[in-house]
């Protein structure tokens, strides 16, 4: 077990290192840098000024040097300054993280709350009208673009309540926060819950075909006991993996949802930073997302040890 943990940890570091190289190189391939954009916006190009800005930001240095500077700083906890606001990256990203985290947490809560029970029902009632309805609903969840769903929700609020539930100022109370976040969380969580539901269904159907289910029936277990006791325990195992991946990958859906609902979270911030070629923000934000993904994957693996008696990660 101990050596497994060490090995996993080293692989995580390797993945993060690879990600840092990948993202750094990709960003340097981007046509144009912040200086180009600033000057384009101003409608004039003064080569001397532009060169000065590039020199100030270190953009004139060889790419290896730039990379060394970034990683060196990162390891010392220095994330650099945003090109756009000229404030420390940490101060820019930091306050936005809790907002996105709350949204993602709420969305994940919704998706588990609906996804697992509906997936089980769909599998148990396989090929009944209820199953067909649930399957169509879950498939729509995977088919509606989350930004369109968000827009539809806005439309709905406009025509029925006359207000738009978008973020205008920070909420003051926790229930105000809950009310404000639950709409976008539902918009983005619909997709995750559809995914979890589908996986729960297929996992459940797979388990119901197993020999040990026949054994349980041969011993006189009732349908309820077979479905909810013998089968469900096995069926949720693969579902935990998807929940873990979704927890981290929700940020993809949140990018567009935060944009529509005007929420100042990290996901929308990433797009803004990319559009502005604000390298320090993009680099560090992508690294942060990757870190969250690998850590959650690691936690899911550990959770498996608890949930599945067969897995012991022998040395």
């Amino acid at each position, binding site marked *: 077990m101990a050596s497994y943990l060490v090995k996993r940890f080293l692989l995580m570091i390797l993945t993060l290192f690879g990600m840092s190289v990948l993202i750094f190189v990709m960003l340097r391939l981007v046509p144009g840098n912040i200086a180009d954009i600033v000057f384009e916006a101003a409608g004039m190009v003064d080569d001397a000024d532009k060169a000065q800005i590039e020199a100030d930001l270190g953009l004139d240095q060889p790419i290896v040097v730039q990379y060394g500077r970034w990683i060196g700083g990162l390891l010392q906890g220095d994330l650099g300054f945003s090109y756009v606001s000229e404030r420390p990256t940490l101060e820019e990203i930091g306050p936005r993280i809790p907002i996105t985290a709350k949204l993602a947490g709420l969305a994940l809560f919704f998706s588990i709350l609906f996804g697992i029970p509906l997936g089980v029902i769909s599998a148990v009632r396989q090929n009944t009208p209820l199953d067909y309805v649930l399957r169509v609903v879950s498939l729509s969840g995977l088919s509606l*673009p989350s930004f369109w769903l968000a827009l539809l929700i806005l439309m709905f609020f406009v025509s029925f309540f006359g207000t738009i539930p978008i973020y205008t100022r920070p909420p003051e109370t926790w229930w105000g926060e809950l009310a404000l976040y639950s709409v976008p969380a539902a918009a983005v969580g619909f997709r995750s819950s559809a995914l979890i539901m589908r996986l729960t269904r297929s996992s459940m159907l797979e388990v119901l075909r197993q020999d040990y289910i026949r054994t349980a029936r041969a011993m006189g277990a009732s349908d309820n006991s077979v479905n909810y006791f013998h089968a469900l325990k096995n069926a949720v195992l693969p579902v935990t993996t998807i929940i873990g991946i979704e927890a981290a990958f929700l940020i993809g859906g949140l990018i567009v949802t935060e944009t529509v609902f005007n929420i100042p979270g990290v996901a929308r911030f990433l797009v803004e930073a990319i559009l502005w070629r604000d390298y320090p923000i993009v680099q560090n934000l992508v690294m942060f997302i990757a870190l969250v993904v690998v850590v959650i994957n690691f936690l899911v693996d550990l959770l498996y040890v608890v949930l599945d008696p067969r897995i012991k990660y022998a040395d």
Partner: protein
Amino acid sequence: MTSTDHSVELAKAGANVTGWWSRLVFLALRFPLGAFGAVIVALFVFAAIFADAITTVDPTSTNAAKSLAAPGPGVLMGADFMGRDMYSRVVHGARISLAVGVGSTVLGCLFGVIIGLASGYLLGWFDLLVQRVIDIMQALPLLVMALVMAASLGPSLQNTIIAISIPLIPNVARVIRSNTLAIRELPYVEAARAQGMSELRIAVRHVLPNTLAPLIVLGTAQLGAAILTEASLSFLGLGIPEPHPSWGRMLSESAAEYVRTAPWLVIFPGLAISLVVFGTNLLGDAMRDLLDPRQRS
């Protein structure tokens, strides 16, 4: 025991189905949702191919008089701020969607298969390297990866296809690799090896054909994801540039401000995306049930 009408039960099981037409009908009855999906996809492809024939107005021509016209005679789905006909734009949008969806899926699958096959077949250091790179690429959500790729390649139709295809590669490669690993251990592959068949020949003759079924299943699933990703990228302004009529782009132009004033600008492009992705997903599900017996429900 109650008496049972054998013929009814047999018909349900699909006995006595012969000929391709009755087989098709049988499949459609057995997978009604899949058949529905196939119809949607067929309509989508039809609209993409014959877009110019089934519309009368150029999707890019502006008309100040029709700015924000509501749906009505002459403007079936209304017009946008610049007075461009939404019906024509939505129909022509199918072209973009199809091009990006099919283009990036084919590209992603092609590289995924080559990498996965090589990785599962050669093993050794190459496999180790591929696995690590896949790990890295899968540490970012599809959209984030596509976003970075799209930004670094610059906005164009071609680049959008490439940007979306790259994050699809690891998925395909991973499935093909594990499939290859399983197949290369099968007795008939061992037998081919024992008969002195070359490794390359074995890979092409035995292993590759057996990865076809999972590939079709995976490809159909990826198609929907690719179309959705294109829509999201364009929505965020990092995908298909103007003046191409991209569904995602249409929504970004009209996003929140037209929710109140011109809802048709929001409804039709979104409906088009959802319907097409829904169709491919339905079809993909039926494909999986049909081709992957382990998953069959």
